[in-house]
């Protein structure tokens, strides 16, 4: 009896040990795969820390880091980084102000045309940006919105509004009708129910939508390229593009700017991982 028990115990322990060895091996393989996938990101950082020059003869590890690239980058692109920041924050505000009420309506009000509206939003997400840029250039030219912060904010919001409506709606579908019904009984109109009940509950979804709106606007290249024509107002993505030109003269400055432009994505992925993961899943298929 006791021996039988012991053998069962032992084999279970052995299986457990085998499993934990396997899962530890998986972790090692996982880290290796991630290292391969993220090697370009490492290389960007490594190159940015090399002394200035038009060649790329960097060692594998920046033993003697030089910050000359960053000095050059901040001198050339500091203003452009600020422009990107202002435009991105503006886009987040425009996106959430427009998308949140719409998402609430599409989730909670019983309209007959909701499936049509969702179809339109799905299709809107697929329209090539160059189509939008083509038409906006002409319209902005007439309205005097070329080379303006407002023009860029409004155009960049197009990257995120359909996405935000879909993500927020998916969340607000889950709001229990009884909560909103209780508010109604208390005499709250649809605006109060939305503002003081739905929005606080949807806080996490709002953060997700807001983060992605920021990243989409920060990454925008097409509208920066087409809707600005002077150097006075230039998002950093366009700054990098103009750096690239035909012949790159200072790789460490280009890569330093690339690193600075990557900071929002890297920081958000580290500190706001669960919101990013939620958005990555939610936006694509709904």
């Amino acid at each position, binding site marked *: 009896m006791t021996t039988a028990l012991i053998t069962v115990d032992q084999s279970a322990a052995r299986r457990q040990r085998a499993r934990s060895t396997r899962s*530890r091996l*998986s*972790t090692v393989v*996982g*880290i290796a*795969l991630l290292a391969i*996938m993220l090697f370009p*990101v490492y*290389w*960007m950082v490594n*190159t940015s820390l090399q002394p200035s020059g038009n*060649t*790329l*003869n*960097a060692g594998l590890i920046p033993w003697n880091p030089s910050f000359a690239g960053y000095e050059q980058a901040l001198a050339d692109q500091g203003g452009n980084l600020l422009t990107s920041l202002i435009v991105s924050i503006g886009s987040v505000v425009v996106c959430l*102000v427009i998308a949140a*009420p*719409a998402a609430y*309506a599409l989730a909670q009000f019983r309209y007959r045309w909701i499936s049509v509206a969702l179809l339109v*939003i*799905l299709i*809107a997400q697929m*329209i*090539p*940006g*160059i*189509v*939008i*840029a*083509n*038409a*906006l*250039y002409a319209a902005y*030219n007439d309205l005097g919105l070329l080379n303006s912060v407002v023009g860029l904010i409004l*155009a960049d*919001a*197009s990257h995120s*509004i*359909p996405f935000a*409506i879909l993500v927020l709606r998916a969340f607000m579908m889950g709001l229990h009708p009884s909560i909103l019904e209780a508010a109604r009984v208390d005499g709250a109109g*649809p605006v109060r129910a939305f503002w003081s009940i739905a929005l606080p509950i949807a806080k996490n979804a709002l953060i997700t939508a807001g983060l992605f709106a920021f990243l989409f606007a920060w990454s925008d*290249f097409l509208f920066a*390229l*087409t809707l600005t024509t002077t150097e006075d107002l230039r998002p950093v*993505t366009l700054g*990098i*593009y103009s*750096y*690239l030109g035909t012949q*790159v003269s200072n790789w460490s400055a*280009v*890569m330093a700017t*690339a690193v600075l*432009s990557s900071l929002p994505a890297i920081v958000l*992925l580290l500190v706001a991982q669960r919101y*990013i*993961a939620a958005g*990555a899943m939610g936006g*694509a*298929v709904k």
Partner: protein
Amino acid sequence: MTTVLSSRRRRLRREDVIKALFVVPAAIYILLFFGYPVVKNILMGFQDYTTKTFFTGEAPWVGLQNYVTAVTSGLFWPAMANTLLFTIGSLIGQFVIGMGLAVFFRRQFPLSGFLRAMLLLPWLLPLIVSSATWRAILDKDSGILNQALGAIGLDAVPWLTSPDVALIAVILVNIWVGIPFNVTLLYGGLQDIPEELYEAASLDGATGWKAFWHITLPNLRPVMSVVLVLGVVYTLKVLDVILGLTGGGPANATQTIAIRAYQTSFVDFEFGVGAAFSNILILLSLVFALIYLRSNRKAVDE
């Protein structure tokens, strides 16, 4: 009685108006920033629309002339072929690698969640940043890739400067950019396959490849079609990656329809012909969008 009724009706109507105000801003935005551009592009496609139009306000109707110009231009068919190669190549690479990683991450192991999240990084970086970085990596003379090839005795490849390999290089970079998107969606799909199916199959001796072939693939079909069709739609319109790496060159080896649309409008300032290229792009996307919506509906029905 009548006053009570009419006041209630009035209140109802007032609430209807308030409710409508929830969607009005979004409706106006979508009309202005998605509806108007599509309509405007279709119209511009039939107009002689150039920089002169901005001064004179005149854009004479020219019928199908812009489309004739676009299709008979020397770069149209090469660009079309490149678009197809770029899209198919990117999709196959992203999908196969994405599927491999998704299956790998299905095992739960220490740090798996964190590593999977970090894998999203290439997707979240501005595309122009990725292009710049890859340009440094792929540089013919001093890029790290050619140095690594040299270290194992291979010749340097002129990745971005030779018309023979530039398209391949651009596809490789776009695969790297698209992997996280594929992993995320496929991993999500894998999570929805009940564990019991695998347990039952393993009792019948189906594990490993057999289980993948007979359980994973059939159950993942709806998600796979969504991933592939969205992939096509997103890949067709890629601009940043190609503009940042090659600008459509060398010797037009990486020209695509999207690049043609951009350059015709914003480099040559032939907005009418550019719109014609854009509309051809919309048409291509539309075909796949319809496939997507059908497969999506089927996925929802199932």
